[in-house]
């Protein structure tokens, strides 16, 4: 490897820029002042206490957890169907169907949210956590399909054929051979969809009928300066939480590639 000191220091500087607001989170979350500004005033854990005591925040967190678990489950199941079908079979209309499934990746989220909202309101559907789940699944499914497609692609077709030759039915082959091999991909997809849903704002805001949902709640609280320090405490917790989730997802994704004997091709997506 050639040395490139200038490029390297630029990259480190760029990483600092990327992490800039995230680095500020713990600094001001432990800062003993109602005002988020320098100079720092000394150490306190009071903001974490205030955060933990906030009943509305707990409700919002509970709702978000429920939504994220449902969304991750649903979109991973839908992702398995679509990824398996697109990798394994050729069928008419495959390109437009896959295109439609992946469309939310290249469509501003606001358009999806508004289109769905207009239809739901026209049909007289009551907005609830359920409508948020339905909408978020549209956003997360393309990510599930992308991750699961690479999991199914690295699958050795001859293993399935061997199982069928030995008298297994297609269903039992899927359960005994295919499923265990793509399990790391399924776990990675579940965790990624969970993270995206937990973080999602637009659908939660417009299809949620004002129900307390974590991202919407945070958005609202930032308007009150007195609430900002406890939001920073919450942010510190959330960032730690999602880094752990992503670390686990990355572990499963790599194990899946290693299991199938593939080579690392770098990153999600």
């Amino acid at each position, binding site marked *: 490897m050639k040395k490139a000191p200038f490029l390297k220091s630029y990259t480190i500087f760029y990483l600092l820029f990327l992490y800039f607001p995230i680095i500020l989170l713990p600094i001001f979350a432990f800062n003993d002042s109602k005002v988020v500004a*320098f100079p720092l005033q000394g150490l306190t854990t009071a903001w974490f206490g205030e955060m933990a005591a906030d009943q509305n925040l707990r409700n919002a967190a509970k709702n978000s957890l429920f939504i994220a678990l449902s969304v991750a489950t649903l979109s991973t199941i839908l992702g398995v169907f679509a990824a398996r079908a697109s990798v394994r079979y050729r069928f008419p*209309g495959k390109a437009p169907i896959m295109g439609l499934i992946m469309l939310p990746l290249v469509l*501003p989220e606001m358009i999806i949210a508004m289109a769905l909202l207009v239809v739901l309101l026209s049909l007289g559907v009551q907005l609830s956590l359920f409508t948020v789940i339905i909408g978020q699944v549209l956003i997360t499914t393309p990510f599930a399909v992308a991750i699961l497609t690479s999991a199914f692609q690295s699958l050795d077709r001859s293993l399935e054929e061997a199982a069928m030759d030995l008298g297994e039915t297609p269903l039992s082959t899927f359960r005994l051979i295919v499923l265990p091999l793509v399990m790391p991909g399924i776990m990675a997809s579940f965790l990624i969809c969970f993270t995206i849903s937990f973080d999602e704002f637009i659908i939660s805001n417009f299809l949620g009928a004002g129900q307390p949902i974590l991202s919407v709640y945070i958005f609202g609280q930032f308007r009150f300066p007195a609430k900002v320090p406890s939001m920073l405490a919450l942010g510190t917790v959330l960032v730690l939480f999602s880094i752990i989730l992503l670390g686990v997802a990355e572990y499963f994704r790599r194990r899946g590639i290693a299991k199938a004997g593939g080579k690392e091709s770098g990153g999600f997506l």
Partner: protein
Amino acid sequence: MAATSKSEAMSGLKLISPTAIYVILLLAVPLATVILYSVLTGGRGTISLPFTFENYAQLLEKPVYGYIMLKSLLIALVVTFITIVLAYPVAYFVSFHVRPERKSLWLFLITIPFWTSYIIRVSLWFVILGYGGVVDSALASIGLEPLNIASYSILSIIIVLAHAYAPFAVLPIFVSLEKVDRSLLEAGQDLGESRWATFTRVTLPLTMPGVIASVLIVFIPTVGDYVTPKLVADGKEPMIANFIETQLLKLNNYAQGSAFAVTSMVMVAVVCLIFILLNRRFIGGQK
């Protein structure tokens, strides 16, 4: 042979049907509805026949629609440009100067901020840039005048968006850099070209598909961003998404709002197509 391919088609369709039905009902139908609504006659809270192009005519008549659309496009283009220019050297460094076994660690570090608490990151910028916020108080502590960057609405929107979507840009460029045949670069230098000339004449053209992918992946969510203009500039500088909200929900005008949504979708698609066409000679040159 025909029989097996027919049964294969059946199995494939059966397998994909749950996902296909889901997206048809909940994505295709709503989008079609919006397009239909945009050519119906609307009023406050009502929508009815006959078909009309009045909603689209309104978009042309009232300058505010064009202004919002143009402003959003310009902001998104500036943000995209900044993001790509900043990201390219990073992707180049990771691809060319990092040992292969360490590459995924670097990529993981770069992508983490993208997956973490978008709302908190954007809201924090408000605290950072605002009057008496982190930037101003840090400046004051070394004896400088406060900048109050947040009062320059468009500037702060650009800063926040360029930061929010920065990690998006690195990955596609990195992937295309990885595919560049290193022997081509050596050949260029053996033939006496400088490293800079090798870069502009070989590496950059070969990685244009990655650059275009990055442009699209940054431009599309940026132009449709709702949170940043709402929060950072206190809603004084609405972009497309905020305006759609106003039309559809606050004014309750489904027809007009739909026409605006459809027009902005078409605008985004046209800009993306122009990008792809401009660089068509690069795309497909590399597989």
